Structures are given as C-alpha cells and as structure tokens.
C-alpha cells in the first residue's frame, strides 16, 4: 500500500476485516500521511481540500488512535470564519482531537473579562487570541516624548494582557496570545525608524514589551517573528479585511494555524523530544569512510563546509535548551565517531549526543533502538537525513516518527528543520539544560548494571541520594512541566497547570511531594511528583509520576516507605491508588500490585474506563529496604 496515499489506505477494507492489526496500522498510516500534508499545506484552499480528507479518514477509521482531546477557545479580532478550519487541522496534525469554541464576532476583550460570557462558560484549556494592529486601542501622538511613548506602550500591553489574566484566574485557561504584525503603511518613511511616535516603531516596542510583561500562563504566538521571516505583504489582505474583517491572508492562515498548534503541542506534552541525525552529507559534506577525515567538507575551506558547520552550531543550540540529539548512521562505529573526536572544525562533540547508532541495519531499526535506549516513544522522534531513500524507508516502517523533507542544499538545512517547529517549548528549566548529560549518565549506569551480579548490588553501586519534599515555589515550573510531559510512568496521566500546582502546594487537604535524586554520576534533578488527597481514613493517591530516566532505581519503593510513614503519623489506615490506562502507560499497569497493594472492591462513580483501584493497609505494611540514602 502506498504510504503517501490515504485514499488508497481508505479503500483497503477487506484486508482490515481479516487482519485487525493491519487495520490499526493503516489507520496510523492514513493519519500520519494526512498530518504530513497538513504540515505542508500552502494556503487556505489546500487546507479546505484536506479538511474533506480528514472527514473521510475519520469516517473510515475513527479519530487518530493517539489523539488527545483539546478544549480550545478561538478569540479573533474581526472574523474567525476562515481561521477555524485550518486551526482545527493544524491541531489534528499535532496529535490533538480539537473541540473548538468560537467566541462571538469581534468580542475578544469582553469575552475574556466577562464571567458569564460563552468563552467563560466553555472553560477552555487553551484560549487562542488573535488581535490585529487595527485593534491597538491607543497610539502615540506625533511629537510625544520617548517616555510618553513608553508609557503608552505599557498601557497598550496591559490592555491586552489583563483580560488574559481574568480568564486564567476564573477558568484556569492558559492563553496563546498573538503579538502584532505592524501596519502595512509607512507614512513617515525611513524617518519612522527614528520617531518614537511612528506606528511601525510603536508596534515593535509593544511586541518587545509584551514579551517582558507576559505572565507564565500567557504563551506568545510570535506573529511578529513570522512576518519578519515571510514578509508583511502576504500577511494580511486588506481587500478581505475591508470586506469581511478577515485578519489573515489565505497564505498566512495555515502558517498562523501551525504556529499556534506547535505552542499547544509544547504546552500539552505533544512536542517532539529527540532529533535523530544522519552523518554523511547531513552533518558534513562527503562520506567519511570513503573520503577520510581530511576529505570531508566541514567548516572553513569550502562553501558547503561552512554551511554544514552552521547547521551543527544550530543543533548545538537545540541541545543546550534540552532537545536530545542522537545519531543514526549506516557506518562502522569507529568511522562514524572519528570526525567528532578528531576533526578540528566539528562543532558537535560526542558528549552532545544522547544515543549513537552506527550499524548497517535499516534506519528504522536504528530509530527503534534509540527510542528504546532513551525510553521514549517513537512519536517523540524527528528523523533528519539527506537521503530520500532512507526517509522513505522510515516513513513506511514507522509512521509515528516525523520525517521532514531535506533539500540537497546544506545551507537550507537549518531553515527546513526550524520551520517544522517540532521542538517548541513553553519554558526552559535548569533540568532542560542538563538533559543530554543526564541521558549520557544513564548509558554509563547501564554499564554498571551489566557488571553487577545482582540488581541489589547494582543499585548499591550507584550511591543514590534522594530528597523528598513538599512542593516548593521554585519547583512549580518543573512540576507542571512533568505532569504535562510524562507519559509512561504516570498512573493517572492527569495534566495540571502551574496555577493548580501552586494551589495544591498551599491547600492543607493535599499532601504534595517531589523527589530529587542524585547518584555517583551526578544530579538528576526533580524526577518524581506525587499528589495525594488527605481523606478521613486514607491517603488517596491522585497523581504519581516519575521521569523515565530513573525507572527501576527503587525510587517508587522509597516513596512508598515515605507514604507509609506519613499515613501513620496522620493516623490514616489506608493508602489508595488508581491506575488509569492511557496509550503510553502500560509499563505501570501493575505498579500498585508490585508495591503490595490489593485490588479495591467495586468501581467508583465517574472513574474512567478501564481504571483499576488499589489499596494498602498501612497497619500491615512493612517498609522495604531501599539502597537510596535519604537527605534533608
């Protein structure tokens, strides 16, 4: 079956009846092909045609198996009629099943402020807000002093930000707020660049100030950045603005929609985490095994060598902010490592990679091995390879992996990767910056595990130290991030906002705990989160999640010992927990059973499908020995 043709995937009916597994695969293929084409759609017309295909695939296969429902409100200056369809498609392409509420025509600010508005009643998880420069409420007067203009800019920013705060405080909705494309006219000409009161200049000032003033729950949709890249002329079509108040041109609609969806993906744990790179003709020019270390083109000395080096530097920036880099190359391992060890112009070093696969196996096998080693799902990977045959092989074998097109021109590589917005993030924590190092350490620990005679001996050899503490203000960012990104070791997959995390930390009815872990290789940072409701006779464990980096280290036993202590101190008889199955958390299905919990009697009201309930009698529980030293 052709991978690129969902219409044919749709027609393979008989096969599917006979082979249910094949049905699952063709559904995954049909959705992945659609997602790719939504990512490539150039204008509104293409998006409309794709919307028809989405309907056909949905009728045939149902929603994408891995999709997450997202309740989003769309609040748009002027008319949102044209924007809504492309936005829904772009969200679908990022793995969401969107439920979009359209705010009434041209009522952005009142909808956000009013507790009885349709938007407030809908209580969206995410409010997507798009203003246009035509809605800037105040402009500087000609001749205003710089201080005066600054004050006006701040006033304008608050005028746009305060309504966001109102909705957030009422409904907990986070906001994706677009900043501004400047007006199309320059009545002051070049002098405008020197005049504080010039409108274009003023919009620039407002955009910078929005970034300075936006609180955590406002994620800026960088329209100004898109316009810098694509040009202002194609952004708004004034004919259609005058006709029907459509704020974006046909070409701008998909771009804006995809940019918005990328932010939603970052916020709700759907962004990709790991970039898997080919080597020859991707990170340098030429083939190291054929051309030798001196023969490859990298850095000063050749034009494309400079382009490859610039690409490497860009990748290094990605790694610095927490994107995992991995290599998947058809090469002898020693040859593949050589440029990183010996080439003077190589910007990347072996330490920048969390995994390094060099072999002659198909690339899809290499990608599987990388995902397994890093404990990531395939849907966390992006594969970047200059060779179209390799891209084809991976697309066919692993539809979950994102495979961007790559041109033959290395100078274009960074843009092609950048345009995909695969690795968006809504905040950078200290843990992000140390991520690659932490994964490398895991590899070293793996070596210890193989050397140890028993699991116990291995754990002891790690010299682990843990600190269990209630949520603290400086950890709120990381905790909220973990609740939204952790998929595997996550018993209930309950996502929380920063605000919820803060509320729970202060609520005496909740027990909150985070765990930091370090070992002989270094500091893993905050790796486990637990929230429990304190009931009359029990601790009800509502959230229990751990970073996959520290699975099988005994941390869950350590936490259990701690919970037993707490329950005894509070004279509570039971620990109760729930497992809610998701697409990804199969590994913890037996988590509570492994810790000695017994199945609890009877289903509970409102508990999700397939959920299992567990309880542990605190009086009868014996703390197990765990080779982790507890600090603090």
């Amino acid at each position, binding site marked *: 079956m052709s991978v690129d043709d969902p219409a044919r995937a749709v027609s393979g009916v008989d096969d599917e009846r006979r082979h249910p597994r094949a049905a699952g695969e063709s559904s995954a293929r049909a959705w992945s092909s659609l997602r790719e084409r939504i990512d490539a759609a150039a204008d509104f017309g293409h998006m409309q045609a794709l919307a028809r295909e989405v309907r056909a695939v949905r009728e045939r296969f149902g929603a994408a198996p891995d999709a997450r429902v997202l309740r989003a409100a769309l609040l748009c200056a002027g008319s949102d009629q*044209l924007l809504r369809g492309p936005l829904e498609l772009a969200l679908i392409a990022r793995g969401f099943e969107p439920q979009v509420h359209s705010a009434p025509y041209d009522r952005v600010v009142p909808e956000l402020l009013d507790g009885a508005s349709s938007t407030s009643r809908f209580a969206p998880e995410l409010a997507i807000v798009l203003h246009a420069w035509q809605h800037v409420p105040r402009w500087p007067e000609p001749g205003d002093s710089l201080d005066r203009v600054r004050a006006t800019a701040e006033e304008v920013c608050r005028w746009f930000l305060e309504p966001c705060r109102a909705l957030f405080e009422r409904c907990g909705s986070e906001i994706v707020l677009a900043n501004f494309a400047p007006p199309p006219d320059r009545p002051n000409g070049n002098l405008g660049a020197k005049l504080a009161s010039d409108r274009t200049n003023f919009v620039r000032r407002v955009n910078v100030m929005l970034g300075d003033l936006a609180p955590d729950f406002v994620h800026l949709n960088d329209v100004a950045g898109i316009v810098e890249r694509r040009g202002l002329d194609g952004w708004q079509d004034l004919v259609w603005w005058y006709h029907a108040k459509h704020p974006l041109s046909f070409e701008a609609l998909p771009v804006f929609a995809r940019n918005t969806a990328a932010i939603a993906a970052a916020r709700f744990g759907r962004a990709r985490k790991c970039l898997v790179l080919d080597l020859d003709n991707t990170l340098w020019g030429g083939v190291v095994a054929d051309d030798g270390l001196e023969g490859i083109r990298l850095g000063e000395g050749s034009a494309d060598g400079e382009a490859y080096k610039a690409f490497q530097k860009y990748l290094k920036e990605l790694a610095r902010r927490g994107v995992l880099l991995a290599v998947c190359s058809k090469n002898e391992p020693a040859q593949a490592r050589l440029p990183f060890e010996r080439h003077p112009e190589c910007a990347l070093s072996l330490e920048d990679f969390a995994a390094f696969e060099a072999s002659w196996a198909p690339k899809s096998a290499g990608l599987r091995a990388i995902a397994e080693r890093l404990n990531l799902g395939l849907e966390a990977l992006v594969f970047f390879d200059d060779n179209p045959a390799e891209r084809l092989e991976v697309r066919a074998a692993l539809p979950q992996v994102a495979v961007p097109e790559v041109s033959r021109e290395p100078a274009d590589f960074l843009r092609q990767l950048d345009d995909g917005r695969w690795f968006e993030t809504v905040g950078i924590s200290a843990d992000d910056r140390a991520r690659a190092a932490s994964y490398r350490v895991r590899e070293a620990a793996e070596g210890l595990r193989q050397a140890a005679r028993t699991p116990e001996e291995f754990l002891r050899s790690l010299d682990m130290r843990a600190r269990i503490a209630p949520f603290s203000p400086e950890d709120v960012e990381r905790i909220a991030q973990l609740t939204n990104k952790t998929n595997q070791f996550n018993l209930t997959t309950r996502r929380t906002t920063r605000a919820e995390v803060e509320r729970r930390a202060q609520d005496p009815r909740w027990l909150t705990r985070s765990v930091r872990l370090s070992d002989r290789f270094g500091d893993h940072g905050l790796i486990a989160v637990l929230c429990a409701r304190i009931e009359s006779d029990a601790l009800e464990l509502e959230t229990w999640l751990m970073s996959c980096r520290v699975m099988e280290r005994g941390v869950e036993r350590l936490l259990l010992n701690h919970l037993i202590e707490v329950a005894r101190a509070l004279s509570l008889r039971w620990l109760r927990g729930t497992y809610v199955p998701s697409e990804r958390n199969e590994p913890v299905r037996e988590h509570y059973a492994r810790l000695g919990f017994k199945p609890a009697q009877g289903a509970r009201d409102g508990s999700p499908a397939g959920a299992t309930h567990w309880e542990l009698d605190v009086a009868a529980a014996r703390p197990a020995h765990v080779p982790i030293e507890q600090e603090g």
Partner: protein
Amino acid sequence: METDLLWKKLAEVFEQVFGEPIELAPHTTAADVYGWDSVKNIELMVAVERAFKTRFTTAEISRLKNVGELAALLAPRS
C-alpha cells in the same frame, strides 16, 4: 478568451472549491448552490482570482450578483 472556454475554466474552479461538479448558468447565485456561504464565497473569489491571474477590487466583489456578472467581469481580462 472565448466564452465557452471561460465558462469551462470557471466550472473547474467551482468544482475544485466545492469538491464536486456544480452546474453553472449566468443566473446562478449563491442561494442556488448548496454550501455557498460567505466563507465559501471568499474561497471561491480567491480561487477565481488565481485561476484567471487577476485581482478584483473591493467594489467589484461587493457588486457581484450572480455567476453571469462574474463571467462578464472576467471576459475582458482573460
């Protein structure tokens, strides 16, 4: 462009926008075609502009009453 050719090209654009063939006559209006709402109208106008490599003015779009007037607008430009 000859009239027949123009109507043929117009029919192609309509089919592309509506996802199915649409029977067109000079007196056809939005009310006669299922799904021809204000959003479709914009999509249609932009698709026609592209197919005929022309650009309508704000006033021209406002004045259009039926497909015949659209064809008349296009005839001298194509």
